[in-house]
């Protein structure tokens, strides 16, 4: 078989990312000696246009029939190079990548060992690609309807874009009203516009939109099927209890966040001191237009404490990203509500990275807000004030900038509680089969290049369920998800990976070991023929049945025993 074969091997230097540790020329030279290799080159950036051109030219000039690219992780650029060789008329599955960056040059420092390893990985790729078969991409019909889980600002924004484009959307909201966490907010930083106005516009459009089916007080119970053809069961009791199943092609998860529970932190006396409240409780006061102490008096001193539950090894190490600007917003709103009230803002760092944020910070300083900086590991201490102190509480802060210990009066203390994943995020992740990071936020497919998709095809994430976000970011991600789905719908048919398992009926003895194994029930048993067979559209190519079949009657396309054996021989040769 190798006799006739013409394999091209391309070793990427990735600038210096690979080349600084791995001797790419040596790897290419070694590859050139392997059976079936017609050409082996080392080049600065294989993924660049000239790099791809080089491959395409070689395929045409040397009529290569197989290509190996030794470069970054296939999870990064496999699609890129598949497209490239496809342009040159090769079947995209006649490509194999050797991961010599993420799994070699970036993790090893010894040039000799690293080069040896890169050579072995490349050899394995050559052995493997020699056994690749051209595979037909499968295309299935795609249901243009979309399921959006979560009726917050992100969910609504995504739903509207899809609906405006003329496609059906099912918007499922657990609460009996839309709006999510934004509905709990009064004004919005940094322009102090009204959250209600913002929402009312969205909510009315959503409720009135003929393409949007809003299911309030409802939850998604189960999600079956695969990209393009999901079946979701929605259960709810908005009015009378109901359960309905809807067919959708894609799903957007926009389930948002919950605020940190301040009572987990004892030292701020939340729950004990009546006038220590959380940012959300203060928002409520603002919306009701009654900024006052529990005793019903107007506060003369308001203190705002940042990073409650955030950037703190005991609770959450991350920054919740919206609290700083919200705190500044409070300074303005307090002054507006209680003229002459003194506001002190006790912070660790002032994160003002967003558009207009820095100006907003400056403007807040102008309204005479006292800014006090405390150190991460040295939180302010609140105690009840004495009868002659003329205030409810006294807050002791070791102020970093002045280096002095400062005691400030407070009638009302606002704790800027951070964001954390909802309690049900684990169930949701399981429901739609996506992963969560160590804090419980949903994991995107790629942190930089693919921030709205997930590892499960057809499932997208938007808004603060992925990580703390402010409204602009949430809306941006939501509309990005909508755009991704629209692009997919526009293509009409849905190209899905040609990789799936097949039963050789001449080898299947009908023992039925595989029947129970498939997580997608893709294996059915034909009682007539007494054979098992795989419904390829349902198969996600995990290969569990392939390994389990005692008579080797099941083959995993593109992950055949033969190909993996070749890879084993390659890395060990």
């Amino acid at each position, binding site marked *: 078989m190798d006799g006739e074969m013409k394999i091209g091997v391309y070793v990427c230097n990735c600038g210096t990312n690979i080349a600084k540790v791995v001797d790419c020329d040596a790897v290419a030279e070694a590859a050139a000696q392997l059976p079936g290799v017609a050409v082996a080159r080392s080049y600065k950036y294989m993924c660049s246009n000239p790099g791809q051109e080089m491959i395409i030219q070689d395929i045409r000039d040397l009529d290569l029939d197989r290509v190996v690219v030794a470069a970054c992780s296939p999870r990064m650029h496999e699609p890129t190079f598949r497209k490239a060789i496809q342009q040159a008329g090769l079947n995209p599955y006649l490509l194999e990548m050797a991961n010599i960056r993420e799994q070699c040059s970036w993790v090893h420092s010894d040039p000799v060992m690293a080069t040896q390893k890169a050579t072995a990985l490349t050899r394995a790729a050559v052995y493997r690609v020699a056994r690749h078969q051209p595979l037909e991409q499968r295309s299935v019909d795609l249901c243009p309807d979309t399921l959006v889980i979560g009726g917050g600002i992100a969910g609504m924004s995504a739903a509207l874009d899809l609906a405006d484009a003329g496609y059906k959307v099912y918007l499922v909201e657990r609460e009996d009203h839309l709006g999510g966490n934004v509905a709990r907010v009064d004004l919005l930083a940094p322009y102090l516009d009204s959250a209600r106005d913002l929402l009312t516009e969205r909510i009315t459009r959503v409720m009135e939109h003929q393409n949007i089916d809003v299911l309030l007080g409802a939850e998604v119970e189960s999600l079956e099927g695969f990209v393009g053809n999901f079946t979701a069961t929605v259960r709810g009791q908005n009015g009378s209890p109901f359960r309905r199943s809807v067919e959708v092609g894609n799903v957007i998860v926009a389930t948002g966040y919950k605020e940190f529970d301040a009572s987990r932190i004892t030292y701020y006396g939340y729950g004990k001191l009546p006038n220590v409240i959380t940012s959300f409780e203060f928002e409520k006061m603002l919306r009701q237009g009654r900024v006052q102490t529990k005793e019903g008096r107007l506060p003369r001193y308001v203190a705002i404490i940042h990073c409650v539950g955030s950037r703190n090894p005991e609770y959450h190490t991350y920054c919740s990203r919206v609290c700083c600007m919200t705190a500044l917003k409070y300074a303005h709103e307090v002054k507006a509500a209680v003229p002459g009230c003194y506001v002190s803002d006790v912070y660790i760092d002032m994160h003002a990275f967003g558009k207009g944020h820095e100006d907003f910070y400056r403007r807040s300083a102008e309204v005479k807000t006292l800014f006090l900086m405390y150190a991460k590991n040295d939180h302010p201490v609140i105690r009840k004030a004495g009868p002659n102190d003329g205030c409810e509480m006294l807050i002791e802060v070791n102020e970093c900038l002045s280096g002095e210990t400062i005691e400030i009066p407070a009638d009302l203390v606002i704790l800027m509680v951070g964001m954390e994943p909802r309690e049900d995020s684990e169930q949701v992740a399981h429901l739609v089969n996506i992963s969560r990071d160590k804090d419980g936020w949903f994991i995107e497919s790629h942190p930089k290049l693919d921030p709205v998709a997930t590892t499960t095809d057809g499932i997208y994430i938007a808004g603060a369920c992925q990580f703390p976000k402010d409204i602009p970011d949430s809306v941006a991600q939501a509309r990005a998800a909508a755009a991704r789905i629209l692009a997919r719908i526009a293509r009409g048919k849905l190209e899905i990976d040609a990789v799936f398992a097949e039963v050789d009926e001449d080898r299947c*003895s009908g*023992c*039925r070991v595989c029947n129970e*194994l498939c997580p997608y029930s893709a294996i059915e048993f034909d009682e007539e023929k007494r054979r098992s067979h795989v419904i390829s559209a349902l198969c996600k190519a995990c290969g569990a049945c392939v390994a*389990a*079949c*005692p008579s*080797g*009657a099941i083959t995993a396309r593109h992950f055949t*025993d033969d190909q993996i054996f070749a890879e084993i021989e390659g890395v060990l040769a």
Partner: protein
Amino acid sequence: MADRKLQIALYWCAACGGCDVSVLDTDEFILEVDKVADIRLWPIAADGKYADIEAMADGELDAAFINGAIRNSENEHVAKLLRRKSKVLVAYGSCASFGGIPGLANLTTRDEILRRVYRENPSLEPGNTTVPLPETTVDGMQLTLPSFYRRVYRLDQVVDVDYSIPGCPPQPDRCRESVLALVAALTGQADPPPKGSVLGVYERALCDDCPREKTEKKVKRFYRPWEIVPDPNVCLMEQGVFCAGFATRSGCGVRCPTSGIPCRGCYGPAPGVVDQGAKLVSAVASMVDSQDPEEIEAILATLPDFTSFANRYSVPSSPLQRSHRR
């Protein structure tokens, strides 16, 4: 048939004789073979000398059928001799094909065997310290015994084999079919099967021919054959009785499972399978009905000595061998 009678030889290496009996069990068929072929060598039933074979021209024999595993230099010597003298060499039976039951010796060591036979043995002569030696001299008369290989090999691990006919022993009707096919090929009446072909077997595993009813393979415990009187109509595996049938090539006539005895795999792995044992690992594990590591361990503990079940006839065929380990 052919104008010239075929020249064939039957030989046994490390075998039990069951393969030769399976040839006798083809009954009158032997007389048919006698019509078209001269049996130049058949130790169990015919007189004939090594000298006769050594005197033959290379390739003078049309076919040699060798049963038994390779245990010692003598086995290897004769196997090589017959290879040289024969146009076609056939591994006959499971020992020649996979190593067979004698191959279970590869799970222990030569020292262990000698210890158990000549040192720790309830019927040994009291005070015995003697162990047989490769070379002895009894008052001037020198006597030799062959030394033995550290492990058992299957035939194709020492000589080039053209075809194999597995089974312990091969069932007589399979044997007839295979021999007829070969005779046809050797007399130019049919194209020879591709080299390496396994003859006298079917493509599919035993379950295909097993009448027992199969539904869902999920078990909470395994039963050893002595622990249960199984339902005669239901798949033994589904009753928790380890049966290698689903990992074993059919051809035997399913005689064991239909008699209430689980298959132990004598017909060898399905085509293309590297190791029967490895395949049984994943297949059997797939049936374990639990997700709790401890419960999984507990369920699997009801299946002791797994290896001798998974590789009952194929230890010498495993990719792993421990021949030189103490």
